């Protein structure tokens, strides 16, 4: 099947100055990622994974090289256009959850739509819908600090989905979670990719997860050292391996709905804006 590159990175380098010392965080990275792929950035800590991801999100500019998102050059975008890029095309999930503590769960999920000038009624409806999808329907009036880590991360995932973006960027989303919650989060991400055909980029250094990726980008010292395609991924199912050894363990977490329940609901910010 003919695939279009949703992300095309050419010769990307990033240098930081730490006082007088120059840190080469990325060096001549080139890659293409296609629509609907599940990608893993894999490599030791400090190899430049987060830097690469934040540049895809347009949170910092490259030193040299270019990033094209569906043919659009991020370097040519104004700060407002970059904000719109993050709001509409990118959904970000962080290791530290990064929810706003002073807002309740629904407000957090709806916040990107608030920035997009969607009416309160519409965005709340959308947020409630996503809250159900991530299996957190009961908790809409809670604030983040009243939730466990795994629950917070599911809220963060709901938030990343709210504007129906093409690309989900997840930077070690399971890094702060116990293995049961980590498994739930992985299940969600995988189902988003499989059922909603979203492009997912996952940063991890847990080798257990790389089996779910279509392709794995191995990184080291700011360089892309190897790209590996996984042939068996489509038969692998998130629940199979990762949850087996958790059986019998007491969990206060709610059951994450089966991946099949996460369906595309054709929500579009552009449409809603009209």
């Amino acid at each position, binding site marked *: 099947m003919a695939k279009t590159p949703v992300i095309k990175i050419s010769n990307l380098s990033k240098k930081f100055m730490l006082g007088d010392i120059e840190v080469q965080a990325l060096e001549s990275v080139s890659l293409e990622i296609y629509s609907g792929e599940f990608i893993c950035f894999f490599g030791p800590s400090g190899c430049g994974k987060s830097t690469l991801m*934040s540049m895809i*999100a347009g*949170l*910092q500019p490259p030193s040299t090289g270019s990033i094209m998102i569906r043919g659009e050059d991020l370097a040519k975008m104004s*700060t*407002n256009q970059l*904000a*719109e890029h*993050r*709001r*509409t095309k*990118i959904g*970000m999930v*962080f290791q*530290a959850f*990064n*929810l*706003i*503590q*002073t*807002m309740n769960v629904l407000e957090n999920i709806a*916040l*990107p739509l*608030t*920035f*997009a*000038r969607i009416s*309160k009624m519409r965005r709340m409806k959308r947020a409630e819908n996503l809250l159900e999808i991530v299996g957190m329907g009961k908790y809409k009036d809670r604030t983040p600090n009243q939730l466990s880590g795994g629950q917070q991360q599911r809220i963060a995932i709901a*938030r*990343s989905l709210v*504007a129906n973006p093409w690309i989900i960027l997840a930077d070690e989303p399971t890094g702060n979670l116990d293995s049961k919650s980590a498994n739930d989060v992985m299940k969600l991400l995988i189902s988003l990719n499989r059922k909603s055909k979203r492009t997912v980029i996952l940063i991890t250094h847990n080798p257990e997860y790389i089996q779910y990726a279509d392709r794995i980008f191995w990184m080291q010292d700011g360089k892309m050292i190897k790209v590996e395609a996984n042939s068996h991924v489509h038969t692998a199912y998130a629940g199979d391996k990762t949850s087996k050894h958790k059986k019998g363990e007491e969990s206060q977490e709610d059951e994450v709905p089966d991946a099949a329940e996460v369906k595309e609901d054709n929500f579009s910010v552009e449409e809603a804006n009209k």
Partner: protein
Amino acid sequence: MKMIDVLRIALGNLRRNKLRTTLTVAGVVVGIATIVFLVTLGFGLQKLVVSNTTNLEALKVVTITKSKDENKLLNDALIDNLKKNPEVDLATPILSYSGTVKEKEGIAPVINGVEPKNFAVYDLKTNLNKKFSSDNAGEIMINKNVVTALNETEDQIIGKDFTFDITGLDPTNTAKTISVKLKVIDIIKDDSKGKFGYTPIANLKELNHHFFNIKVKVKQKEKLQEVKKEIESQGFETSVVASQVDAINLAFGVINGVLGAFGMIALFVAAIGIFNTMTISLLERTHEIGIMKAIGGRDKDCSRIFTAEAAIIGFMGGFFGVFSGWGGGKAIELLINFLANKAGGSAPGHLFYTPPTFAIGVVLFAFFVSTFAGIWPARRASKLNPLEALRYE
């Protein structure tokens, strides 16, 4: 982001930090209340002085005192001419001659001939509030000094007739003395040392050469200057009470300015408080701003939330400040009037005066000052690097 959502988030943030918000608003309240208290006291005293100096009707009167030109006279023709001006309510002459009283030696009161129907324009207070019974009634109102000089009491003299010999110029410009018998109908209250009386001008018609002065009353106070200029351009000299009032107003303008400046210092301190609060708030919320930017908030959205918070503090401070300043004034006023009444003195009445436009203006002022104080923290928020802000915890 929509304005309503900016306000929602800003209000939510303020509500969450209740103590800090309250203290910051209290700072603005103190500043604004000080301004309002002091300046409305200034306005109140100004009003009190102006209204004690003149009644409000007097502000509509211009007096033509003399002509600069020999050929132009203060006469009936001029009065007719003045009455044609649509802005003029009335124009009324006065004749003043000195007279003596028959069979009473050494009394020489000034006898003023006035039009009975326009007598109110002189704004004289009398014991009995009498009016002249007709345009040519043989009646006179005299002041206390005349009563004493005639060896009478204020009660007994009412209704008595006296014959006055009044000397003036006749229409041919020759001196002439006329004798008129006039009945005393009322006593003019005044504090002056002079002796005078008022009688219908008809009683002096044989001396009707040209008028001592003409009082012109305009329909609207605002048109006074216009009419005054018009009369002056015809070659007459004029005087108005209004110019004294202008001087009083100017003096109070200066006083109010000084009082306002004291209050301004208080408000300035409050503005520093707002700045401080917003800066602390910015530091606390650095991480939050990073999140907002990472999930698609624009720089503008971040700065607007901060600006809105500062503006809301300013508006609330302004509103409650005006209210407290006004209430404080009212309380002091009540207290002073209460004490004055108790001490048996005359209560001063309203000491504070708050013009509505001033109140609204002060609220807007507080709003703009604090919005201004919030600009810098808001700008900082919008310029934060999202990645650094995300690291910040």
